[in-house]
């Protein structure tokens, strides 16, 4: 057979294309379920860990079913929207929409004595996207509280992660020393106005209700975290105030 001829070359390339395409399609279809499950497991681990529950790959499903008692989608007026699975919402796409058209996912987590709302957040760091989950704990209403009572104003836990922040600097936002200070901070001021948690350069007092220490050398990423909390949580403020479940 003449390997130089046109028809041979043509037939040869067709065969190669068909064989390769079939192989790849088979491999991709066979491995897709495992890949999707990885993504799902990671997301569930993140949701749980923002509620201070550590889950391994093995027990994540069990813990998730046990603690995450409800999940739903709301709009910026705080009304529930039916028919949208909060787990499937792509936050990046939602944030491009005007505030009053966003679909906002909420995950409810029931611990022994308290109820948490887990809210996903997404924003921009220095190099690329940063994201995370923030959980807010429901305050107990006391008789002295007036009409300005806000049930969800205190942060219970927060975790953050990033795609490619500078190692050793901005990348440290996924470390506990940065995340733990967010606990017990408050996102509404005394008169009930929403404000973000400020990430400040050195020396945020422990007593401060809305400031945490930034990362020295990772200022832009730290500011990114602050902006992310601001843009993502602000749409929920009506819901945080009104939810009287």
């Amino acid at each position, binding site marked *: 057979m003449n390997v130089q001829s046109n028809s041979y070359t043509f037939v040869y390339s067709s065969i190669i294309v068909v064989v*390769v395409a079939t192989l*790849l*399609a088979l*491999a*991709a279809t066979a491995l897709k379920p495992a890949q999707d499950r990885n993504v799902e497991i990671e997301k569930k681990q993140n949701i749980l860990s923002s509620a201070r529950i550590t889950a391994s790959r093995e027990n994540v499903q069990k813990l998730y079913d046990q603690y995450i008692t409800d999940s739903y989608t709301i709009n910026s007026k705080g009304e529930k929207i039916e028919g949208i699975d909060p787990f499937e919402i792509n936050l990046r796409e939602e944030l491009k929409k005007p505030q009053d058209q966003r679909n906002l996912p909420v995950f409810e987590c029931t611990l022994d004595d308290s109820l948490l709302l887990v809210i996903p957040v997404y924003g921009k760091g*220095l*190099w690329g996207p940063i994201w995370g989950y923030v959980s807010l704990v429901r305050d107990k209403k006391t008789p002295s509280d007036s009409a300005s009572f806000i049930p969800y104003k205190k942060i219970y836990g927060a975790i953050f992660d990033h795609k490619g922040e500078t190692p050793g600097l901005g990348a440290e936002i996924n470390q506990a020393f940065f995340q733990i200070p967010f606990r017990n901070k408050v996102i509404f001021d005394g008169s009930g106005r929403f404000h973000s948690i400020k990430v400040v350069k050195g020396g945020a007092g422990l007593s401060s209700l809305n400031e945490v220490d930034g990362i020295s050398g990772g200022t*832009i990423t730290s500011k990114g975290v602050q902006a992310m909390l601001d843009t993502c949580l602000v749409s929920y403020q009506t819901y945080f105030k009104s939810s009287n479940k």
Partner: protein
Amino acid sequence: MENLFDLFVRNVFIENMIFAYFLGMCSYLAVSKTLKTSVGLGIAVIFVITVTVPVNWLLEKYLLKAGALAWLGPAFANFDLSFLSFLLFIAVIAAIVQLIEMVIEKFSPSLYNALGIFLPLIAVNCAVLGAALFMQEREYGTIAEATVYGFGAGFGWALAIVVLAAIREKIRYSNIPAPLRGLGISFILTGLLAIAFMGFMGIKI
């Protein structure tokens, strides 16, 4: 507009293909012996990346991404062909390089003489495929952004190779320890240049 300029500067100075991601190192080290050939290869790389990134962007948006086939009708909306992206990107790059080579040969023999020998090298230059993959990963929103990104990435690569070539010409007669000559000192020089370029990190425009 400002945004595009920002993108360009970022990709030339901060997210430089060579200094931050080490892409295209093979030809970078092999060709940077003389300034003149480096300039030639640099221009060829700028050209190829600026053309291939937007083409691959179109491919990504209308063919490969999950749900990208929706324009064919709702029946196609569920296809996810992203597993084919490596194959298609590299095929597009190889085809475009070939095409550019033929066009240049036909219309500008002098340019062909200057760039021609570099073009086949470029098809397997990691910086070109790398730019396509970064474009996919960073999900640039518009074709303008993708084009500017491609131009910036190519320009940054060209800048890096020209700088290194100029330094290598200067140190040709320096007294470098024998085992370090050639490849070794080039690596260390690139490392030092990369440290210098890190000074641009965090600039806001």
